[in-house]
C-alpha cells in the first residue's frame, strides 16, 4: 500500500518479555482508589482492549501506562525501565499516545497536525521516512480530503481521525489509545481497530480503551475487563468475556455467544418500547442501540 509496508517494530520476540508492564499499580485521587493493585503485562504482538463500565478505571489505567498519571503505589515499566527514568523524547520514540480530547489551540491544517506526529524523529535517520509514514497514516485514517482544512473547523469525528493519523505517523512500536472510536462512524470505528490489529500482527503492541464490547471481541486478541479499579478478567475474548461476568459488572443483562474463534456480545433488551413511541419493533431495537446496526444481519 505504501513504501512503509508493515509497522516498523524493533525486533522484540513476540510473546516473551513484556514491553509495557504495570505491577501492583494503585492510583489514588484524594482518598479514593481509582485503581487498586492492577497487574498488567503487555507483550509485543498483542492488541489489548481495556473494557468496563463508566468509572471502572480504564482511562486512568491508560493514563498511568502513558505516564500522565503518577502511580500512588506500584510501578509502570516500559522495556523494563520505570517510566520516570526515561526522558519525554525517549518515550516518544517508543510509544505513541492518543488522548481522549484533542483540541488544537490554533488553526493548523490537518496536514500540519499529522506531520507533527513525526516530531520525535527530527534530525534522526528515521526522518527520511517522514513522508511515507505521513502518507500511510493519512490513508489509515482516510483523511486525505481533509488535509488542507483547519483542524479547528473539522467535526468531532474528523478531528478524532486526524489525531489518530498523527499518532500513526509517529510510528512507535507501542500505541496507547483512549477511546479512539468514541466519535467515529461505524466504517471508521472498524477501520481504526482493524489497523491496530494489523499493527499488533506485525509485531507491535497496542493498548486501547473501548466501550464497544463486540468491537473489542472482534479485533483484540486479549480483553481486560475492569470494574471498580480492579481487573476482573484478562484473556482472549472467549476466556475473558462471559455473560455472567459482563452482566454483573455492567449491571445489565449481556448475552455472549461463541462465534468462530471469538465471541459476539450484545446487550439483552428486557424492556420493549411502547408501540406508540416507535413505529415497529425491529426498528425500535436498532434505534435503542445504534452501535448494533452493522451486526443486525447476524441477529
Amino acid at each position, binding site marked *: *500500500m*505504501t*513504501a512503509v509496508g508493515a509497522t516498523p517494530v524493533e525486533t522484540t520476540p513476540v510473546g516473551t518479555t513484556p514491553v509495557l508492564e504495570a505491577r501492583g499499580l494503585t492510583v489514588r485521587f484524594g482518598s479514593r482508589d481509582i485503581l487498586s493493585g492492577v497487574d498488567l503485562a503487555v507483550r509485543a504482538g498483542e492488541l489489548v482492549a481495556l473494557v468496563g463500565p463508566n468509572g471502572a478505571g480504564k482511562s486512568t489505567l491508560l493514563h498511568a501506562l*502513558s505516564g*500522565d498519571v503518577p502511580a500512588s503505589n506500584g510501578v509502570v515499566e516500559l522495556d523494563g525501565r520505570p517510566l520516570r527514568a526515561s*526522558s*519525554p*523524547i*525517549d*518515550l*516518544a*520514540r517508543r510509544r*505513541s*499516545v492518543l*488522548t481522549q*480530547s*484533542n*483540541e*488544537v*489551540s*490554533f*488553526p*493548523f*491544517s490537518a*496536514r*500540519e*497536525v499529522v506531520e*507533527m*506526529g513525526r*516530531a*520525535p524523529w*527530527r534530525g534522526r535517520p528515521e526522518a527520511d521516512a517522514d*513522508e*511515507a509514514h*505521513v*502518507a500511510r497514516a*493519512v*490513508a489509515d485514517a*482516510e483523511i*486525505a*480530503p481533509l*488535509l*488542507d482544512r483547519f483542524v479547528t473547523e473539522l467535526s468531532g469525528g474528523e478531528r478524532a481521525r486526524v489525531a489518530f493519523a*498523527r499518532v500513526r505517523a*509517529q510510528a512507535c512500536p507501542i500505541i496507547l489509545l483512549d477511546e479512539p472510536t468514541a466519535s467515529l462512524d461505524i466504517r471508521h470505528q472498524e477501520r481504526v481497530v482493524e489497523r491496530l490489529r494489523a499493527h499488533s500482527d506485525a509485531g507491535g503492541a497496542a493498548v486501547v480503551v473501548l466501550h464497544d464490547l463486540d468491537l473489542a471481541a472482534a479485533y483484540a486478541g486479549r480483553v481486560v475487563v475492569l470494574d471498580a479499579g480492579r481487573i476482573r478478567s484478562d484473556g482472549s475474548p472467549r476466556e475473558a468475556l462471559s455473560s455472567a461476568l459482563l452482566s454483573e459488572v455492567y449491571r445489565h443483562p449481556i448475552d455472549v455467544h461463541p462465534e468462530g474463534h471469538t465471541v459476539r456480545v450484545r446487550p439483552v433488551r428486557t424492556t420493549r418500547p411502547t408501540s406508540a413511541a416507535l413505529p415497529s419493533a425491529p426498528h425500535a431495537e436498532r434505534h435503542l442501540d445504534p452501535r448494533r446496526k452493522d451486526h443486525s444481519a447476524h441477529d
Partner: protein
Amino acid sequence: MSAAIARVAAAPGDDSDDPTPLDRDSDAVIAHHRPARRRRTLTWSLVVATAALAVVSAGLGQLAIPVPEILGSVALHTNDALSTIGLGGIRLPVAAVPSHPNADATLWSIRIPRITMALLVGAALAVGGALMQGVFRNPLAEPGVVGVSSGAAVAASVAIVSGATFAGPLTSPLFAFVGGLVATFLVYLAARSGGRTEVVTLVLTGIAVNAVCGAGIALATFLSSTQQREQIVFWQLGSLNGTRWQDVAIVAPVTAIGIVGALALAHRLDLLALGERQARHLGVSIERTRVIAIVLVAVLTAAAVALCGIIAFVGLVVPHLVRLVLGPAHRALLSVSALGGALLLLAADTVARTAVPYADLPIGMLTALVGGPFFFWLLRRTRLRSGGWG
C-alpha cells in the same frame, strides 16, 4: 464545445464515486497548501516597506531632509565605518551631501537612534506577544493586556524612585525584567486550569495584575520628586522621545537574545498547540519549555518597557495578522511578526512625532487607540466561535 460540457457534467460524478481516498497517489498527500512563496513574498514586502519608511521617517520633522541627502549621509557614514574596520576598498556611492549644517547631527544623534529603537521595540513586542500566545495556548494573551508590561513598569518606577544605580544604565532594565518575570509567572499560574488558559480567566487575571501594578505605580509616583514624577509619567504613556545610542545599545542585544531564543522554541510551541499532554507524548519537555518561554517573554517585554514605557497591543495585533496570512506555525509566525512589529511601531512613532507640529504624542496612546478596538473585535469573534467564553 459539447466535449467540454460532457467533462463538466462528468466531474461531480467522478468525485462522489471515489469513497476510498486510499488509492490516491501519495504525492498528492504531501503537496503543501501554505507555500513558502507566500512567506517569502510577505517577508520581502515587509523588509522593503520598513526600509522605505525608515528613510522617509528620517527626513520628516522640524528640519526636513530630502531623501537623496539621507541616503548620501548614510553612505558617508557607512564608508567611514568600512575604512575603520579595514574594508576601505569597498565604497558606497554618495548621492548627495546634507545641505543644512545641522542635518547630519539631527540624523545621527536624534532620528536614526530613535528609528532604530522603534524597530527594535516593535520587533520585541510582537515576538513577545506571539511567544506568550503560544505558551498560553491562547491568541488573546499579550504582555500589555495581561499585565506583564505594567509589572515591568512598576519595577522600573521603583528603580527610579529608589535612585538605585548598582547596575549603571542597566539598573532600570534589570528591574523591569524582574518585574515582568514575576508578573508573567503570576498570570501563568493564576490563569491556567487543566493545561489551558480560558479567555475569561486570562482577561480577569490581567485586570487584577494591572490594578495591583497601577497601585504600585501610583505609590511610586506619590513618593517621587517632581523630576522623578515626570519620568514615571513618561513610562505610563510610552514614548520613544529622547532615545540615545546608549539606550539602543542596551535594547538591541536584549531584543536579539529574546528573538533568537523564541525562534529556538518555535517547533516546541507548534507541538504545544496540540495540548500539553499531547506535546509531551511527542517528546517535548513541557516544564522546561514553559520556563524558558516565560523568561523570554519577560526579557522581550522588559527590553521594550524599560526604556520606552508601556506600549500595548503591538503583541496582539501583529501576530494575529501574520497568523491570518501565514498560518499558526511558529517559525514563520515569530520571524515575520518581528518584521511586522518593527514596521508597525516605526509607522506609529513617525505619526507620534510628526502628526502635531512641535509636539511628541505618546506612542502608547496611539497603539492603544488602534489596539483597544482590535482586541474588542478579537474577543467578540472568539466568543462567537467558541459559543461562550471558552
